[in-house]
């Protein structure tokens, strides 16, 4: 498919050019942006919310908002950052609107198919079970910590970029991420050390007090 000028395929234009075309009324430009970024947006939404239906609704809300309000994009951040910001906001808005947050496992269909349905090697099955456990632990984090951890540690955004997406200072991103990691370390200790038979490894004395204070704060949030 080509741009309105008729000479350059949309697939060869950068994100900013596609946004400009969309604002000018090109009917295909946003579809190309969606194609490029949809999987990462889905990943962040699903891992932040921990519920496929909620994540689908949040992604839908966010992308439709982005589609309609593209003229408000000022170009001071990358388009993908802007899209993530809108979708993550939609996720956190959904969390704020509900009174309690489910901490149940993500449905198997979306993140880890039931082992009985697949003929897979044992190691592949272990990988899926590990991924399922990690996703459960992420889903149990406070949403703002989950979002920070997902953006930084799963998706690989920089602190500065995550700060733009989360609309908060970089220091806040760091502290949310740290607290999330501390809680994950406690939850996923047996994965970190399979030999520990499910127990969280003992931390050196020097680390105990700081870890405890962080966990304590996590617990109050």
């Amino acid at each position, binding site marked *: *498919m080509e741009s309105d000028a008729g000479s350059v395929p949309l697939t060869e234009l950068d994100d900013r050019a596609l946004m400009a075309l969309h604002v000018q009324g090109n*009917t*295909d430009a946003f*579809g190309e942006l*969606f194609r490029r970024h*949809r*999987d990462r*947006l*889905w*990943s962040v939404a*699903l*891992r932040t919310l921990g519920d*496929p*239906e909620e994540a*689908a609704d949040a*992604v*839908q809300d966010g992308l*439709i908002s982005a*589609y309609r309000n593209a003229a408000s994009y000022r170009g001071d951040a990358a388009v993908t950052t802007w899209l993530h910001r809108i979708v993550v906001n939609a996720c956190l808005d959904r969390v704020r609107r509900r009174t309690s947050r489910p901490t149940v496992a993500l*449905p*198997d*269909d*979306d*993140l*880890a*198919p039931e082992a009985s*349905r*697949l*003929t897979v090697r044992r190691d592949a099955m272990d*990988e899926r079970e*590990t*991924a399922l456990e*990690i*996703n459960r632990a992420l889903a149990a984090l406070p949403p703002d910590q989950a979002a920070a951890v997902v953006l930084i*540690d*799963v998706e*690989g955004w920089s*602190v500065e970029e995550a700060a733009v997406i989360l609309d908060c200072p970089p*220091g806040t991103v*760091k*502290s949310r991420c*740290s*607290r999330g*990691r*501390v809680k*994950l*370390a406690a939850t*996923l*200790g047996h*994965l*970190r*050390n399979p030999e520990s038979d499910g127990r969280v*490894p003992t*931390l050196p004395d020097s*680390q105990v007090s*700081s*870890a405890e*204070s*962080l966990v304590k*704060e996590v617990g109050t949030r």
Partner: protein
Amino acid sequence: MSDSILLEDREAQARFEAPHDSDMAVISLLSSLPSLTMPADLVADLQRRFPPQTALIQQTPADVIDISSRRRPRWMAPLAVAASVALLLTLGAVVFRSTDVTIVNADGPVLASGTEYSASNLATEVPELLNTAGLSATSAVSEARIAPADAAALAGTFAASPHSIGSCIDAITDAPTAQLVAIDMATFRGTAVGVITSRVSGEKGLTVSVVPTNCGAENAAILEQIVIADQ
């Protein structure tokens, strides 16, 4: 904000800058998570809300229908129901049953024609293959006249076992009932793919879906999809 909270914030920030071993282990675990693909039905639904992608319609003949408007959001369905795929072998026919999809087919529905498909030739090549294979476009129980793909050629693909085929079909279809007419292991734009032809009850046409060879619950990507209207 109290001093104690500020101190804890600073402590947390400092720990971010100098992560402990346990933090590094968590980071390692998180970075090993597989990348996710947006479910095909959500993609289709969102594309419907944006101006439609017209490439498929432009590149295919007039009797090819854009089916995006007929797909229902899969995430609205109870997610647990698709887990009950059971395999029955009866009278030489392979029967899959789940509450989400029912597939009935004769022996040998998995072919390996090696056809080089493209968006523009799917609508002509698929019916031709079905005719050659003796797989009627209107019935899913015809006897195959060409040899099915051998097991070795299917190893590692979604077509390797009835279970993995069922997993793929569950992942990509929204239809409550769908008859699998044929699977053809081939190429699409130069990439190895499976071309799944199915018929949804009550619809007057064949649905042709081009999927990656690792199609399944974790990869519900549909590279191309058309409906070929019955003549």
